[in-house]
């Protein structure tokens, strides 16, 4: 098996003597490599930055902080309500199109937030079709005649990000609900609690770790976003970072602001873990039967249908339709002749990264489980915090750490062999994949950890007592249980790589274009309509895996195999 080859130490893990086993050492090594760019940013932050803090604190910093907090809270709350609510509906109730919504609710995941922001601005602004229609209908003639919510605002940014990010919460919440033993819920029902109270008092608390991981991903993605907030002229910590870096010419100041963001995220995660420090969320029974799906009265079924349709329509159908409209109206822009090449580059990079991210994420998540080291979880959490850093800043961290490695290798080669290999990794596809892995570690590790945490350690204990090595336990017990979340991790990383922009721009080799860079160069030249084919291709490439994901998750429910008695 792959893992065995990369880390022969694990095979000998049969011994129960506490020592630094190969698995722990390997996990530390990988976490260390992934953490390199973050460490590079911290090193950058240690340089002096003039009196940037005094300037910021006396001018815009309070505003950055409150706006950022409002944005994160708004998007967090929005994704929580939509994600958990729809997940519960499609898991527990029967209503029309429920089977379609199971996967369709994931579709907005495929839409980049910068694209949805462009599209809705086009629809909702003064000259857009909606306001034109309203003016025609009511006979208004100018903007002063009526009030219409401004899309380019904090509220607009919250709405846009909520629409494309809620699938993270939906995905993890749904997986958690599906994995819950029906017995627990039945006990709750027998004790006289209705479906709603069972949800609030049993299912929701049990799913909390998974939902929190989903929410953490959402908040981190919200914090690292630059495209949407910049386009909507909302001043957040991230726009501040770019400003200090590029306008005030202080990379050190920007790195310091980025580290501040990281500290805030780390504190939030720590606080949440502390709040549930005494709780354990393992499944205590291996008994899984098909969930009893409650039929709904026609009125309620209609409401459930509407509740699921709204986010899908707003987050996917409308923007996709608008993009199709743009694409049909406009001939492709110059430079899009190699469209298939671009798509191939994007797909290849995203697939390679997704595969590696799952192997590494599984290795690390399982490392945390089998290792006796208390430092390992902290090291891995640190390594996966890169997701909260604005992409362009993280890209600089990657560039700096890879170039340092390359230049060191080059210096050694010159000294020892008298030839210069130049930069071996910088500016290659390897650099891009490494950058993606650093950025999206939180996705793969988080998704796998969420699922692994629910498997009771007594299973591991029993198997180990029977003489199985950790690797063997992983293969025979965990992998079958984890199949769904491994695929979840793979597809989250895949879809995010397809959309990824700042690292792609900076790390790529010469003459290398992807769909995302194509969309960006046209959109940044204010040629929105011409960027539509590329944006559509990104969305389309995300759809199939997303559907596959949903089907696998449904089948992955324990007790849902050939012997399952699901109708």
């Amino acid at each position, binding site marked *: 098996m792959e893992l065995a080859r990369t880390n022969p130490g694990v095979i000998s893990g049969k011994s129960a003597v506490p020592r630094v086993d190969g698995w722990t050492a390997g996990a530390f090594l990988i976490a260390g490599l992934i953490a390199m760019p973050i460490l590079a940013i911290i090193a950058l932050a240690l340089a002096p930055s003039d009196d940037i803090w005094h300037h910021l604190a006396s001018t815009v910093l309070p505003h950055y902080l409150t706006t950022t907090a409002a944005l994160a809270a708004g998007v967090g709350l929005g994704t929580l309500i939509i994600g958990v609510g729809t997940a519960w509906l499609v898991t527990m109730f029967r209503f029309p199109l429920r089977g379609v919504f199971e996967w369709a609710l994931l579709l907005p995941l495929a839409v980049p937030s910068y694209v949805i922001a462009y599209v809705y601005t086009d629809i909702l602004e003064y*000259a857009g079709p909606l306001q034109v229609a309203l003016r025609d209908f009511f006979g208004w003639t100018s903007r002063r005649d009526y009030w219409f919510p401004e899309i380019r605002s904090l509220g607009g940014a919250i709405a846009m990000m909520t629409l494309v990010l809620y699938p993270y919460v939906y995905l993890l919440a749904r997986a958690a609900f599906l994995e819950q033993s029906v017995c627990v819920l039945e006990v709750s029902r027998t004790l006289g609690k209705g479906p709603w109270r069972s949800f609030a008092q049993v299912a929701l608390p049990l799913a909390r770790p998974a939902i929190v991981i989903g929410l953490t991903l959402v908040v981190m993605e919200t914090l690292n976003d630059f495209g949407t907030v910049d386009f909507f002229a909302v001043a957040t910590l991230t726009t501040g970072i770019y400003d200090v870096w590029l306008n005030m010419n202080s990379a050190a100041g920007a790195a310091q602001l980025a580290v501040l963001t990281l500290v805030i995220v780390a504190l939030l995660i720590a606080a949440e873990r502390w709040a549930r420090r005494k709780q354990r969320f393992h499944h205590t029974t291996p008994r899984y039967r098909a969930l009893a799906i409650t039929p709904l009265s026609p009125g309620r079924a209609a409401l459930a249908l509407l509740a699921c349709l709204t986010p899908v329509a707003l987050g996917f159908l409308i923007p996709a339709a608008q993009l199709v409209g743009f694409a049909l109206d406009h001939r492709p822009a*110059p430079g899009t002749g190699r469209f298939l090449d671009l798509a191939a580059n994007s797909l290849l990079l995203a697939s390679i990264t997704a595969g590696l991210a799952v192997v590494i994420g599984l290795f690390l998540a399982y490392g945390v489980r089998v290792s006796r080291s208390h430092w390992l979880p902290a090291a891995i959490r640190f390594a996966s915090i890169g997701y909260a850093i604005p992409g*362009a800043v993280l890209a600089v961290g990657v560039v700096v750490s890879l170039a340092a490695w*390359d230049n060191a290798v080059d210096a050694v080669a010159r000294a*020892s062999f008298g030839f210069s290999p130049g930069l*071996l990794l910088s500016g290659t596809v390897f650099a891009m994949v490494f950058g993606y892995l650093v950025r999206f570690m939180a996705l793969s590790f988080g998704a796998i950890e969420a699922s692994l945490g629910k498997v009771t350690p007594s299973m591991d204990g029993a198997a180990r007592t029977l003489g199985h090595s950790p690797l063997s336990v992983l293969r025979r017990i965990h992998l079958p249980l984890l199949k769904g979340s491994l695929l979840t991790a793979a597809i989250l990383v895949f879809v995010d790589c397809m959309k990824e922009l700042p690292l792609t721009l900076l790390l790529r080799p*010469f003459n290398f274009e992807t769909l995302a860079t194509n969309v960006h160069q046209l959109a940044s030249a204010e040629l929105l309509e011409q960027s539509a084919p590329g944006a559509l291709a990104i969305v389309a490439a995300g759809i199939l895996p997303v559907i596959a994901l949903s089907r696998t998750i449904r089948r992955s429910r324990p007790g849902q195999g050939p012997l399952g008695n699901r109708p």
Partner: protein
Amino acid sequence: MTLHKSLRTAGILVSAVIGAAAFASQAMAAGEVNLYSFRQPFLIEPMLKEFTRQSGIAVNVVYAENGVLERIKAEGPNSPADIVLTVDIGRLHDLVEAEILQPVKSPVLEANIPAQYRHPDGLWFGLTSRARIVFASKDRVRADEIRSYEDLAAPHMKGRVCSRSGKQDYNISLLASIVAHKGEQAAREWLAGVKANLAQKPQGNDRSQAKAIMEGVCDVALANTYYMGQMLSDKNPEQKDWAQAVRIIFPNQDERGTHVNLSGAALVRGAKNRDNAIKLIEFLSEDVAQKLYAETNVEYPVKAGVALHPLVESWGPFKADAIELAQVAKFRPLAARLVDQVGFDL
């Protein structure tokens, strides 16, 4: 071999294998030149293709924005970059400050590019210029209402001004030029005056300012010249409407002149293809490329005597602010702080 040494060797081998496997397109062979470009590739592709056709030298491009400077710095003497192309004087200045450029001495460049549009020591060369002009509503702005940037801050423009973010590169450069001419205090007061006149919170891009004027949100806005040309030639008929709602005003014609910004090229310190790189920069300053810039990007060529785009031609000549742009760029960090102090974007 000691353990230490064998580890080193292993490191080299791993790097070599991975590097080779990752189909690195490192430029080693002769007959190449490597660009890191802030400018969108489709805007420079026609010139680069023509260069390759004439010279046989292949041109490789990485188009990136943020972090190019840090990438070159980190790569050090091994950096494959030969030339950096930028679209703003600020980036050129940052490259100079980071000490990652080398001077070029070229009679061709000195003949083609006016001294004002190149670095005194030949560290960078401007290739095109664009003026920061005022878009004004055709119907609602009288000719005498806006004659200068200063008028944008005057009381009679209250509630009539639109702007994109004060932090946007071109706005920062304009503000830095005001600092350079009139000092920090005067620049701060000017910016506060413009803020007091804003019709809405700063937002959107240059095109959306024209759109806002058409919609009646405001009467005037700052924009770059080439956007006018791009809107008029856009396939989307809407954009023509926006452009046709506004006329353009070159501010400060009676005094210091209209602020201009540059797109330019600079030679990287460790450039491996130095000769090819200088050939390319020279080519970009010659008639063929300058004419392409004028036609396709609707910009002002820096070389005198090159035909302008018909639209640009129709605006007639204007007086450009003659201040040395390196002097302006120096004040960019201060200008960015002024935007914060005034709370322009909030």
